[in-house]
């Protein structure tokens, strides 16, 4: 992972058109501003993980696998 040190008010670019600015740093966390083209999707990581996890959970089971999996889950 690339690690950079930035102070409040400083920013960096990812590619040509995504700019990340550190707006404020405090004990509660860092406030980040993002300037990006409208079509760029920006998601908090935990939301992205939840989305992916939900999709995995929804894939579910075929009826045949179901009984076997349930037995296993119930121990």
């Amino acid at each position, binding site marked *: 992972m690339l690690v950079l040190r930035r102070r409040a008010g400083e920013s960096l670019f990812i590619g040509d058109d995504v700019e990340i600015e550190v707006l404020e740093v405090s004990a509660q966390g860092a406030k980040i501003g993002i300037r990006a083209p409208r079509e760029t999707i920006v998601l*908090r990581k*935990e*939301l992205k*993980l*939840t*989305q*992916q*996890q*939900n*999709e*995995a*959970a*929804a*894939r*579910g*089971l075929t*009826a045949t*696998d*179901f009984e*076997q*999996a*349930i037995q*296993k*889950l*119930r*121990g």
Partner: protein
Amino acid sequence: MPQIETKYFGTLPYGEGSTFEFPFGLPGFENEKQFVLIELEQHAPLVFLQSSLRKDLCFLAFPILVADRDYQLAVTPDDLRALDLNPTRQPELGREVLVLALVSLHDGLSATANLMAPIVINWKTRRALQAIRQDSRYSHQHPIRPRATEGAC
């Protein structure tokens, strides 16, 4: 009694009290705004969240204390407000809210529960949402071991 077509159990009757509204859907499933909670004695403590809209969408879930008997809630004030709950304190498990961890099955049938983003249901209003934690205390892929699920309620 109304009936619902389910993914795993054919058509089942359900009580009005087991229908929950998800005003925001779930991340990845934003259009699914209503689920029916299916609890079957032969599958306890596992429960099922069946989408009212899509027959083929049914989540497997454990009550959060079954997945981790020491689980500590950390629902954000915004989420608590959206659930019509007091935003200044955590709700009481069981009495005010039902909290479920969604289960994912992986290859070889190992299973994990999402403890990072539990489903929180307000019993009284039957409003529900997936409450994503802001801390990193719990994993979105908490391993479930068979038998670890026994004895908790």
